[in-house]
């Protein structure tokens, strides 16, 4: 049995996998959003997800440690690995104290924000290419990269909020839409300045972004009162 889901929050993903096991489905693999399941006893397994310790690779040392703790590595995908352990061995948590939990969330946050920045830079490159070559597909690539930036940045800010919550601090960060609008705004200004001639498209997007930014700023100010 296969199910398609895209998760950018490991806690939500683990919660869902545990729910699937409650219904009698054991996760056996994951590839590009497709989870494979086979039947099992309800509640037989507990799940965890974590970053590989060496980028795309889960080291032999960590694998051995997990195996000693009766943890099965389901698979690795990108920077992550999925793991499960039989519920009979007790509650399953890879991070059992606050300090190490926060440290790990910080690693995940930095990964998302870093990846988001890479996408943003690629977006600017594509936008310049679009302006130079005037081919429609550069604009499409730009839009896709911007979308990717938005998703990754949002995931990073989500981690930032989790960390703030664990540290008992106030969550004061602007929303990810803010970041998105800001990025598009700066891009449009750059595009317009490059040619000194107003391109109607850029001008239109610029004005729309400014309006959305003002609305968002007012909204956030209202929420913080």
């Amino acid at each position, binding site marked *: 049995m296969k199910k398609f889901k895209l998760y950018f929050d490991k806690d939500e993903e683990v919660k869902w996998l545990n729910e699937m096991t409650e219904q009698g489905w054991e996760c056996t693999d994951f590839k590009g959003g497709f989870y494979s399941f086979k039947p099992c006893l309800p509640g037989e397994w507990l799940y965890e997800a*974590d970053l590989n*310790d060496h980028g795309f690779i889960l080291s032999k*040392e*960590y694998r*051995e*440690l*997990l195996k*000693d*703790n009766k*943890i099965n590595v389901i698979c690795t995908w990108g920077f992550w690995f999925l793991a499960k352990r039989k519920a009979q061995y*007790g509650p399953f*948590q*890879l*991070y*059992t*104290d606050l*300090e*190490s939990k926060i*440290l*790990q969330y910080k690693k995940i946050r930095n990964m998302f924000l870093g990846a988001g920045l890479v996408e943003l830079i690629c977006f600017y490159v594509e936008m310049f290419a679009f302006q130079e070559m005037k081919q429609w597909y550069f604009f499409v690539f730009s839009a896709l990269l911007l979308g990717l930036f938005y998703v990754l940045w949002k995931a990073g800010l989500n981690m930032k909020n989790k960390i703030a919550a664990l540290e008992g601090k106030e969550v004061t960060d602007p929303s990810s839409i803010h970041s998105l609008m800001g990025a598009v705004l700066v891009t449009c200004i750059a595009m317009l300045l490059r040619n000194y001639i107003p391109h109607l498209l850029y001008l239109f997007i610029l004005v729309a972004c400014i309006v959305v930014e003002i609305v968002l700023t007012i909204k956030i100010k209202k929420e913080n009162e």
Partner: protein
Amino acid sequence: MGNEPQQPLTESIFYILLALHTPNHGYGIIKEVETLTNGRVIMGAGTLYGAIKTLLKKKWIRLYADTNDSRNKKEYVITPLGKEIFSAEVNRLEELVANAKKKEKEHEEV
């Protein structure tokens, strides 16, 4: 080693350093700490793995030897620097407990 006051050690770090006064591997450390604390502290694999990496970087522990054991499991042991840090922490904790007990006694005598 500067003259700056040492930061308190987290419970996990404290117990890992204690356990590594004798060489041990990852899972062995988890089991020993579980026994020492009567099941109160059961360290997660992620917590332990991260702590080992940090302690190696700080040079408070070192690799013992991974060729002795036939299964090639990496073992770690505390370093002299680690022992220094650890005894300083024990002294700090003793001061805390001694002061607490003193206040308790003063309260009882009132």
